[in-house]
């Protein structure tokens, strides 16, 4: 059958049936292949396009529009498009039924590549005259807006030349638009339209049309699958209202009115708009409104409870001041504005009776100061003296301390804007005030004073150094309070960076009397701490370290104190960088000195002192570079290893030398050490040595590079394990070793860990060893600060805990039937694993874990209960349904645990779970249990521990609210 569109019968066909609409792609194909000329197609359609019935004309237009839409955009020539455009423009005058198709078709035309933009003038004239936009359907209005936008993008200059008539047309076509989606589009389009097209005398009309939507009050229909939210609309409208400077005056009048609205949303929107407007409006525009604006902002900024509102107000104030500051040279209004803020905030500060009020007012001032350099200067110039005076007449200590803090903030602001020089006189008052504060005996004042002094240390005058040092050194020597002590040391450090000479004469040679350090035994430890801290400053390193090492090499009776102080300071990475430690090691031979001291004290010294020595060595080793490490090792290994074979105490030294080596360090002695460590890990009688041996094995396995080095070490391990029928002779120490090996391997992401994990898992079903098995699992899951971390150059794969969790989960499937005893440790191992895995991972396995938890709640094991309750609490907070389904079992068990005698933590946690349950789940499922729970919770109110009582009160008062009037819950 020949296609009807090739003949004039097309018109008849179109009128009679709708099937042809489905065949447009064939027509397009014919046109593209040249079988059909588009002119001929139009001729064939003549009958329907000029039909007397509007219905049929509509059909014809729709059909032709469909074809236009499906044609490739670059197919039609300019002449053709001109012709079709004329035709479509003419059709705009047709019956209203035809209009939708015409608009849709014209949108297709303007999108074509060869469309000549000069056609649009006529189109718009006719469109705005003939078609009342707002009487059209939603989609058709949308098409009109799209046409305008497309043309605007195509040729802005031509559209501009259409002049005010065009602008008026656009204004009147969108006047009264109500559909949220169209509005969203319009707002997006308008913000560029307004910037590009001059409005001329139509500014007022345009603003009126836009501003009638302000502030947006809109609620999306509840059944809308993809609703436009109020916030979307508000965000889109905001830039339109302040798109051009010409809107300035009207916009501000509007703003002033809406800022006083009682609606919270209107206020927030207005503040946002004001902030946004600062990007476009001229600073002069704000002049006449500043007083009212500040009044409104002031009201919102000092709002008591609404944090969001406060935040927005701060942002707005900041933007406004930044804007005004641009004309600070020519206009008095800026200064007046800032001074107005100053006066009202100073009043607020003076009247404040709580810290919260003071902080609120001071925050406003900081915002003002942060906005521009000019405002910063004005605010700080008057606020520093004011605050200093305030400190003088206020008597409550909390307010005085808060004002010290405020001074620190002001100083930092001045540094930020680089106006310190211009504020010299004012800034100098701050350290003076700090001195007044630290001269008080109270700890709070001293800490606050020192903290502020640290912040403003660069403003410290040299004549104040002496009095400060007096107080500080006294604190350092005699203070019992930890916080004060550390702040004091920190302050000395800060002053030393500015005045090294003064500190040298006053502290190091004066008060602490370095040369005769050990003469005065009193508070020696504290002085040593201070000195070792100061030694991190380059100027002092040499003199202090030398003196300290002298004491150590002399092996004075106080040597262990020196070692302790050095260890504590030097392990603080923020004081001593790796480079610094390397430098100390190469300049002063730190390791050699400590090593010889440790060796001589090995059997006689106190355990604690020695362990500080070991840590100091290990820490210094880890800071060294690969070459330096190798040098140290080759110097000492032979000797130590030899002694170690006869005396296991030397293993301590071996372990501190080797545990922090780089991954690439390897030498022939590693194998010997590995064998030694393996043997000691099982056979040593000393707990410490056993642990260190296990750790060293783990470090080696974790760090050795894959390939021969790793193979050799792993082989050693395997041989050792198969030696002497260890399979049969299970022992507790062996299980611990398994734990460390598993940990080392899993952390580097080596799959062989499953082999060792399996061994641990089999112990779980063995009555005798199940407890140790669960402890080994705990060991694998725990992070140790001193073992197997990046400080020791160990590898730590991401997510190794998740991996452990997955393997553990799959391996538990194979565990055979347990008796009650092993079951408990089986659950406990689960608890250890679950405890350390990120909670979010567990959310996917609630179905599997929840029964384990419920079961665990029956056992009388403190650790088990604590972890399981913790996870249960998390599940409840996440509102998992599984828990809701088994409330009948869980609630009695929790109530039972709320009277658990052995541990208050278990009692507290179970009560917390009860509290969270009342919070999380729907009233409907809670209500049946309410009365029982209230009754059963009563005894906990009289628990002998106060912390338990507190939680019981929280839970019980919450349960009282379940289903009661006034409960703040949706269902």
């Amino acid at each position, binding site marked *: 059958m020949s296609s009807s569109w090739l003949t004039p019968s097309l018109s008849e066909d179109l009128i009679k049936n709708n099937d042809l609409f489905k065949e447009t792609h064939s027509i397009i194909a014919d046109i593209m292949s040249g079988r059909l000329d588009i002119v001929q197609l139009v001729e064939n359609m003549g009958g329907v396009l000029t039909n007397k019935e509007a219905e049929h004309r509509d059909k014809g237009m729709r059909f032709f529009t469909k074809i236009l839409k499906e044609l490739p955009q670059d197919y039609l020539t300019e002449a053709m498009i001109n012709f079709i455009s004329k035709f479509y423009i003419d059709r705009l005058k047709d019956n209203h039924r035809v209009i939708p198709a015409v608009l849709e078709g014209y949108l297709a035309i303007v999108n074509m590549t060869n469309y000549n933009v000069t056609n649009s003038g006529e189109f718009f004239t006719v469109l705005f005259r003939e078609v009342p936009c707002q009487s059209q359907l939603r989609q058709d209005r949308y098409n009109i807006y799209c046409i305008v936008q497309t043309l605007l993008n195509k040729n802005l200059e031509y559209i501009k030349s259409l002049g005010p008539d065009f602008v008026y047309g656009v204004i009147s076509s969108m006047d009264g638009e109500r559909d949220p989606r169209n509005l969203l589009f319009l707002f997006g389009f308008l913000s560029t339209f307004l910037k590009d097209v001059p409005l001329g005398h139509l500014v007022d009309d345009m603003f009126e049309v836009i501003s009638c939507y302000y502030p947006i009050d809109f609620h999306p229909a509840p059944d809308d699958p993809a609703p436009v939210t109020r916030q979307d609309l508000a965000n889109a409208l905001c830039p339109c209202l302040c798109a051009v400077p010409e809107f300035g005056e009207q916009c501000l009048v509007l703003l002033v009115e809406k800022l006083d609205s009682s609606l919270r949303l209107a206020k927030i929107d207005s503040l946002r708009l004001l902030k946004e407007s600062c990007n476009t409006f001229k600073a002069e525009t704000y002049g006449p409104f500043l007083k009212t604006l500040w009044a409104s902002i002031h009201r919102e900024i000092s709002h008591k409870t609404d944090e969001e509102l406060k935040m927005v107000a701060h942002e707005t104030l900041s933007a406004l001041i930044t804007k005004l500051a641009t004309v600070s040279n020519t206009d008095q209004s800026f200064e007046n504005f800032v001074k107005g803020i100053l006066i009202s905030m100073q009043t607020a500060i003076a009247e404040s*009776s709580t810290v*919260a009020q003071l902080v609120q007012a001071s925050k406003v001032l900081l915002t003002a100061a942060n906005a521009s350099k000019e405002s910063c200067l004005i605010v700080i110039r008057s606020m520093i003296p004011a605050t200093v005076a305030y400190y003088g007449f206020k008597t409550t200590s909390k307010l005085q301390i808060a004002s010290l803090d405020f001074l620190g903030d002001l100083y930092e602001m001045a540094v930020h804007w680089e106006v310190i020089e211009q504020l010299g006189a004012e800034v100098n008052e701050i350290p003076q005030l700090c001195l007044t504060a630290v001269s008080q005996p109270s700890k709070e004042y001293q800490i606050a004073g020192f903290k502020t002094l640290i912040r403003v240390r660069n403003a410290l005058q040299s004549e104040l150094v002496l009095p400060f040092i007096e107080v500080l050194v006294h604190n350092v020597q005699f203070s019992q309070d930890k916080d004060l002590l550390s702040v004091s040391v920190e302050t000395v450090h800060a002053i030393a960076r500015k005045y090294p000479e003064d500190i040298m004469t006053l502290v190091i040679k004066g008060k602490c009397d370095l040369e005769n350090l050990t003469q005065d035994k009193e508070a020696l430890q504290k002085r040593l701490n201070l000195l070792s801290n100061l030694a991190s400053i380059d100027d002092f390193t040499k003199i202090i370290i030398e003196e300290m090492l002298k004491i150590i090499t002399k092996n004075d009776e106080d040597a262990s104190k020196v070692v302790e102080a050095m260890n504590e300071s030097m392990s603080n990475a923020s004081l001593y960088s790796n480079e610094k430690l390397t430098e100390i090691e190469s300049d002063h031979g730190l390791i050699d000195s400590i090593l010889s001291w440790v060796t001589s004290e090995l059997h006689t010294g106190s355990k604690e002192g020695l362990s500080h020595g070991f840590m100091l060595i290990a820490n210094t080793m880890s800071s060294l570079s690969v070459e330096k490490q190798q040098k140290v090792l080759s110097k000492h290994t032979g000797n130590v290893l030899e002694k170690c074979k006869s005396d296991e105490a030397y293993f301590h030294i071996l372990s501190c030398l080797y545990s922090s080596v780089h991954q690439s360090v390897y030498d022939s002695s590693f194998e010997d050490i590995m064998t030694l460590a393996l043997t000691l890990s099982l056979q040593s009688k000393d707990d410490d040595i056993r642990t260190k041996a296990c750790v060293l094995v783990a470090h080696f396995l974790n760090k050795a590079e894959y390939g021969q080095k790793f193979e050799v070490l792993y082989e050693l391990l395997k041989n050792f394990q198969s030696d002497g029928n260890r399979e049969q002779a299970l022992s507790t120490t062996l299980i611990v070793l398994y734990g460390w090996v598993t940990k080392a391997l899993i952390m580097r992401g080596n799959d062989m860990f499953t082999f060792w994990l399996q061994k641990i898992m089999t112990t779980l079903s063995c009555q005798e060893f199940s407890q140790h098995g669960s402890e080994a699992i705990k060991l694998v899951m725990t992070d140790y600060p001193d073992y197997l971390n990046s400080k020791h150059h160990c590898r730590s794969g991401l997510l190794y805990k998740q991996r452990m969790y997955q393997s553990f989960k799959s391996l538990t499937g194979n565990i055979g039937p347990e008796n009650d005893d092993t079951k408990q440790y089986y659950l406990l191992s689960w608890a250890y694993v679950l405890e350390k895995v990120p909670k979010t991972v567990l959310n996917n396995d609630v179905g599997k874990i929840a029964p384990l938890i419920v079961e665990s709640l029956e056992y009388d094991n403190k650790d088990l209960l604590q972890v399981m309750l913790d996870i249960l609490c998390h599940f409840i907070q996440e509102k998992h349904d599984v828990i809701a389904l088994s409330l009948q079992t869980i609630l009695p068990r929790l109530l039972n645990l709320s009277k658990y005698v052995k541990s208050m933590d278990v009692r507290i946690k179970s009560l917390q779970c009860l509290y969270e349950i009342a919070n999380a789940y729907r009233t409907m499922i809670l209500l049946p249990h309410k009365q029982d729970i209230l009754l059963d919770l009563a005894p906990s*109110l009289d628990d002998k*521990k106060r*912390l338990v009582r507190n939680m019981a009160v929280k839970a019980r008062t919450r349960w009282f*609210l379940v289903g009661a009037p*006034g409960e703040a819950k949706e269902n």
Partner: protein
Amino acid sequence: MTKIADNINPHVYEKNSDREVTSTERDEDVEDEFDEREIFDLIRNINDPEHPLTLEELRVVEESNITVNNKDNTVDVNFTPTIPHCSMATLIGLSIRVQLLRALPSRFKVTVRVTEGSHASEHAVNKQLADKERVAAALENNNLVQIINQCVAAQ
């Protein structure tokens, strides 16, 4: 219904810091007795019916106005309305009573009174608060319970 608050601009006081947990409290074997501070902690966070402020911030309740006797099982709470003609005094007293009723073990006899000389109709309020039946009747009133729950719930 928008009623202007009796005291539109009350004086706001500093909030006390939370009670520090001492080592004896962590010790399983030591028995902690009820003390004034604990009772104070139970009621300090009750909201004022008129303002978004707690009774502590308004100094309606103070630790020094509470007495606890563990031996005789009594708790006496005196509260101070912000102004002498405060119409909310009864409501505040009732809230304190309800909260203590829910949060204290039943062995305690609780007395809630207006601090002497701080309210115009002191005796009437005290009488109402001491009358068990009146309190019980008040708690049957849904609107009242709703307001009290809202005051008490804001922790």
